[in-house]
């Protein structure tokens, strides 16, 4: 499969999802989010040599969410706007579907396999988003000297 073609599909697909998520008036956010999604998928592909879906997803999502936080500062918009669209090519949509299909078909071994993989990808994505938002929160606290009181 041609990777560039796949990236193009990811870009237009993400753009379509911004419309579905009711981003009709501010097209610039949709375009930026779709670009971020493509970037994330490109990074996922370029770390193919690691041969580990969890790590690949983690690195790709970490990049996407750090960029989202930076763009959120730039555009003065919530980071969710970019993360929701940008994570679409990485989100384990087909994994969830496969898992449940194996469950319905009664193929228990494949079901457990696919379930663990899907859950693992979900956890890696969530960790990546969490880590980037923690970094930016730490930066804000250091900048404003709003340290916590340790009791």
């Amino acid at each position: 499969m041609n990777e560039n073609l796949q990236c193009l599909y990811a870009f237009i697909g993400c753009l379509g999802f911004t419309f579905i998520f009711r981003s009709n008036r501010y097209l610039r956010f949709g375009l930026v989010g779709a670009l971020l999604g493509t970037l994330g998928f490109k990074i996922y592909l370029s770390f193919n040599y690691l041969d580990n879906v969890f790590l690949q997803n983690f690195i790709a999502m970490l990049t996407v969410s750090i960029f989202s936080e930076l763009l959120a500062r730039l555009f003065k918009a919530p980071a969710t706007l970019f993360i929701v669209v940008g994570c679409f090519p990485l989100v384990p949509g087909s994994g969830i579907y496969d898992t449940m299909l194996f469950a319905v078909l009664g193929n228990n071994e494949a079901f457990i396999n696919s379930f663990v993989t899907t859950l693992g990808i979900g956890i890696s994505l969530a960790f990546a988003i969490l880590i980037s938002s923690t970094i930016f929160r730490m930066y804000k606290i250091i900048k404003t000297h709003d340290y916590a009181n340790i009791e």
Partner: protein
Amino acid sequence: MDYNHLLECINTIGKLLLRHGAEIYRVEESLDRLCEAYDFTEIEVFAIPTYFALSLTLPDGTPYHSSRRSRSNRIHLDNLYDMNNLVRYICENKPDPRYIQEQLDLIQSHQLNLYLICVGYVISSAMFCGFFGGKTPDMVVAGLIGLILYFFIYILEKLRVNSLVRTLVASMLLSYIAITAVRLGYITQAQSSITGSLMLLVPGIAMTNSLRDIMGGDYVSGVSRMAEAILIAASIAIGVGMMMLLFGGVY
């Protein structure tokens, strides 16, 4: 200042944030900051995906408590952006409640561009079909499925059908169309058309968000969203699996 009106506006802001898919911690933080801006004390906010409770003490010492329920939540990025700007503006300038009310009415009065949403269904279904390895005819079928699904889901939402039933029926319809296309000989395999158009229904983002809530410490919200995501995934699989068993094997 008219505190009743102001608190009414703050509650509406919280409800709109919740309804349009803001993260739980953002709802809590926004309400917290809004109340702090107007010098309320002892502010406590608790939010879960369909409900939030707010209690505080007014500057004259009167206690206040309110809660709002938001049954149907869906992501609405435009309004999320507008609400974010409004919250930021209020915290900096502390405007009169009448001004906040005007802005809220303005945000809620924007009409949706339904054509654009329809186009979104068609192109994302077709493109994700290509993304999962479909050829051109597969993508055409997936785009057609997206178009039909848009109208189907629209009608079911108008009829207030429960989201689980909606997903079940929609996934049955989409796999039926794909299998029929294979039988008529337009495409050779139904797999990529089905997975491509299923991206419209699959709760991938709900699942990632729920894990994020859990890791961030909002266990109640995270677990309830996780249950929702798993049930929706199960209803998709039951719909697709049923049609596959009924109409000719697994492709």
